[in-house]
C-alpha cells in the first residue's frame, strides 16, 4: 500500500455550518430541560448551545436545589464536575471561577451541563448530598483551583499533599511549579522555601532540608549550593508559550503575504510566483514559525537559498508536501 500524496488541502472552515443560534429563552424551553428548568425558572440565568450541547448557568446559591430537580427529572448520573479559572479568558466578566456539572440521563440518553460562577472567597453549595460521586470531584476542584464547597463532608486535598501551598490549575500558578518546602515544616523553613537570606549554611535551620538529617550529612557547602541554585534560577528564562509565540509571529506582512499557516501550499506558491528563489522557498514552508528546523520559516528559506544548508527535510509541520516542493524548487535552480 503505497502512500498516495493527497491533493493540496483546501483550508476548511473550522466552524460547523451551525443553524442560527437560539435565544436563551428558547434553549431553556428545549424539551430536554424545560420540565426541570420550569420548576425554578429564574434560577437559570443564562443558557448557551454549542456543538449540540446545552450549558445552563445557574445561580450559585441554588445549584444544590437545581441539581436535585434535575436528578428527579431523570438526570441521575453526574458524569463529571470540574472547575475552570476564567481569569485569563479575554472578554470574561463574570466572577473568576466556574464550576461545570456534566449530567446524563439514562432514560433520555442525553447530556446537559450546569454551571455556576464564583470567586476565591465565596463557597459553592456542595452537591455531595445529591450524588455521592460528587465527593471526589469536588475535592479535586478544591485542590486544583481552590474553590470552596459549602456542605462537603470532607473537603481536603486529594491529588496534592496536605500542606501544599497553592492551587496548580489556577492560571497564575507557574507551569514550572513552585518551591514546595515551605508549608510542610513551617518551624524550619521560612514561607516560600529555600535558604534564608544571608544564611551562612552553618545552621540546619537555614536550609531547606529536614532537621533530623543534618548531622549525618556532616558539613555540606550549603551556602555555596544555595547560591548556585539561586543563580541558576535567575539565569533560566521562563519557558516560552509555544502556541502564543506562533500566534504572535506567524502573521502575513506586505512583503510576505503568504506567511499565514492557514493557507494551502498552492495558494502560498501562487502568491510568491513573482518573487525571488528565497521568497518561493519561504512560501513553501509550513509558515508556523515552529523553529523545529533551527530557524523561523524565513530564516530556513534564506539558509537554503544561500547554500548554508543542503538539508531540505527539516520542515516538520510541512511534512511531505513542503519537502517535495523544496526539492522541486532547488532542482529548478541547478
Amino acid at each position, binding site marked *: 500500500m503505497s502512500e*498516495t500524496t493527497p491533493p493540496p488541502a483546501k483550508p*476548511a472552515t473550522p466552524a460547523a455550518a451551525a443553524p442560527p443560534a437560539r435565544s436563551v429563552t428558547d434553549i431553556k424551553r428545549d424539551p430536554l430541560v424545560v420540565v426541570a428548568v420550569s420548576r425554578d425558572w429564574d434560577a437559570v440565568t443564562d443558557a448557551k448551545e*454549542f456543538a449540540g*450541547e446545552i450549558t445552563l448557568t445557574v445561580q450559585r446559591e441554588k445549584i444544590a436545589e437545581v441539581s436535585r430537580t434535575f436528578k428527579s427529572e431523570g438526570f441521575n448520573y453526574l*458524569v463529571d464536575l470540574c472547575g475552570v479559572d476564567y481569569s485569563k479568558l*479575554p472578554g470574561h466578566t463574570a466572577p473568576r471561577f466556574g464550576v461545570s456539572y*456534566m449530567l446524563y440521563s439514562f432514560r433520555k440518553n442525553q447530556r446537559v451541563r450546569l454551571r455556576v460562577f464564583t470567586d476565591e472567597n465565596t463557597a459553592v453549595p456542595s452537591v455531595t448530598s445529591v450524588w455521592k460521586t460528587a465527593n471526589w470531584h469536588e475535592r479535586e476542584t478544591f485542590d486544583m483551583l481552590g474553590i470552596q464547597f459549602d456542605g462537603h463532608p470532607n473537603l481536603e*486535598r486529594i491529588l496534592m499533599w496536605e500542606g501544599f501551598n497553592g492551587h496548580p490549575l489556577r492560571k497564575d500558578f507557574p507551569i514550572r511549579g513552585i518551591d514546595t518546602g515551605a508549608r510542610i515544616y513551617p518551624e524550619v523553613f521560612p514561607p516560600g522555601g529555600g535558604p534564608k537570606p544571608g544564611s551562612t549554611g552553618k545552621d540546619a535551620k537555614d536550609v531547606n532540608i529536614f532537621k533530623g538529617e543534618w548531622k549525618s550529612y556532616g558539613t555540606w557547602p550549603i551556602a555555596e549550593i544555595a547560591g548556585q541554585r539561586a543563580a541558576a534560577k535567575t539565569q533560566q528564562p521562563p519557558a516560552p508559550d509555544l502556541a502564543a509565540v506562533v500566534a504572535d509571529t506567524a502573521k502575513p506582512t506586505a512583503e510576505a503575504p503568504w506567511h499565514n*499557516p492557514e493557507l494551502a501550499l498552492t495558494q502560498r506558491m501562487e502568491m510568491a510566483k513573482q518573487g525571488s528563489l528565497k521568497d518561493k522557498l519561504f512560501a513553501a514552508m509550513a509558515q508556523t514559525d515552529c523553529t523545529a528546523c533551527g530557524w523561523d520559516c524565513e530564516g530556513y528559506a534564506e539558509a537554503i537559498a544561500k547554500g548554508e544548508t543542503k538539508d531540505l527535510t527539516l520542515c516538520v509541520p510541512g511534512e511531505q508536501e513542503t519537502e517535495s516542493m523544496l526539492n522541486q524548487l532547488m532542482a529548478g535552480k541547478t
Partner: protein
Amino acid sequence: MFDVHEMEVNFGPQHPSTHGVLRVLLKIDGERIIEAKPVIGYLHRGTEKLFEHMAYPQCIPHTDRMDYVASATNNLGFVEAVEKLMGITKMIPRRAQLMRVILSELQRISSHLLWLATHAIDIGAMTPFFYTFREREQILDLFEAYCGARLTLNCMRIGGMPDDMPAGWLDDIAAFTGKFDEALDEYESLLTNNRIWKRRTVGIGVLSPEEAIEWGITGPPLRGSGVNWDLRRAQPYECYPELQFEVPVGKNGDTYDRYLVRMEEMRQSRSIIDQCIPLVKATPAGDIKAKISRVIRPPEGEVYHSIESPKGELGYYIISDGKTQNAYRCHVRPPSFVNLQALPAMAKGHLISDLVALIGTIDIVLGEVDR
C-alpha cells in the same frame, strides 16, 4: 478513638497488588475491614495543566500516559473531542474511522488481558498470567507494526490517522483473532468453574445498580451490576452503529460477574475486529486524513465528549478561546478515578485479602487516577 481490637494499617503505596502507587488507609478489626480510605496523588503529573500550554496535536502523546495500558482509547477520546469542537466529526474518512475502531478494540482486549493476568495473580492464580501475556504480546506486536510503539502508541491524529496500514497488517490481525477465541476458552477453563476462584470472587464487593449509578461507576463494573449501558451503543461514535455486537451484562454485581462481563467483552471485541477487516479492505488506500487546516485553531466554545474506554467512560471537557492553538482548559474525566471512589463502600466488612480482589476488579490504572 479506637476500640481495643481496632488498628490502622497502610495498604500500599508500595504493594504489588495495588497496581501502582495506590495507598489505602485501613481501619481493621483483626482481618476485617471497618473502614478503607484510598489516598491518591502519588502519580500526579499535572497533565491538565500541561494541556493548557501546548498546541492540540502536542497533547496527544500526553494522553498516552494517563491510562498507559490503553493508550489507543485515550488518543481516540482526545482527538474526537477536538474534532467535535472544530465541527469536523463528519469529515473523518471511513478508512480512518475503521482503523480507529480496530486499534481501540485491540487495545480493549490487551487492557482486559492485563487486567485478567494481574487480577488472577493477586487472588493467587499464577497460571493465567503466562497465558494472557502470550496473547497480549501478539497484540503489542501488531501495535508495533502499525506505529512503532508498543505501549504509548500516539497512534491517532486530529482529522484522521498518522499513517496508512503496513502491508499485510490486516492479515496478521485476522490470524490473531482467528485463534483468540480458543485462547479465551483456555483462560476460562482455568478460572470460570474453578472452585477457589469462585470462593474468592462470588459475593465479594456487591454493587447494586442504583448504587453504581449513584457513585458514577461506568464500564464493566456498571454492566456487572446489571445496567445495560455502553457508550458504543448508547451514544455511538466512529463506525460503531453499523457493527454488530452484544453488551454483556451481569446479574449480581459482584466480582465474579464483573469477571464474566470482561471475558465476554473480549469475545465481542474480537468479533468487532473481524467485522471491520473486510470493511476496511473495501476502502481506498491512503484515504486516512480529513482535509483540514494544518493549524488546529478551533472556534470559541466548550465541548464534553466521552468514549467507552476499557475502564469505563473516558471524557474530555475542552474549552477553547477561539484565538490560540491550545486549549484554554482541558479536563479529563478518568473512569478509574471515579470507579475507585466506590472502593470504601465495596470493601466495608470484607477481609483484607478481599480488598486485593476488589482493587483488581475495579481495574484501576493509577496513571489515569492521578493524571
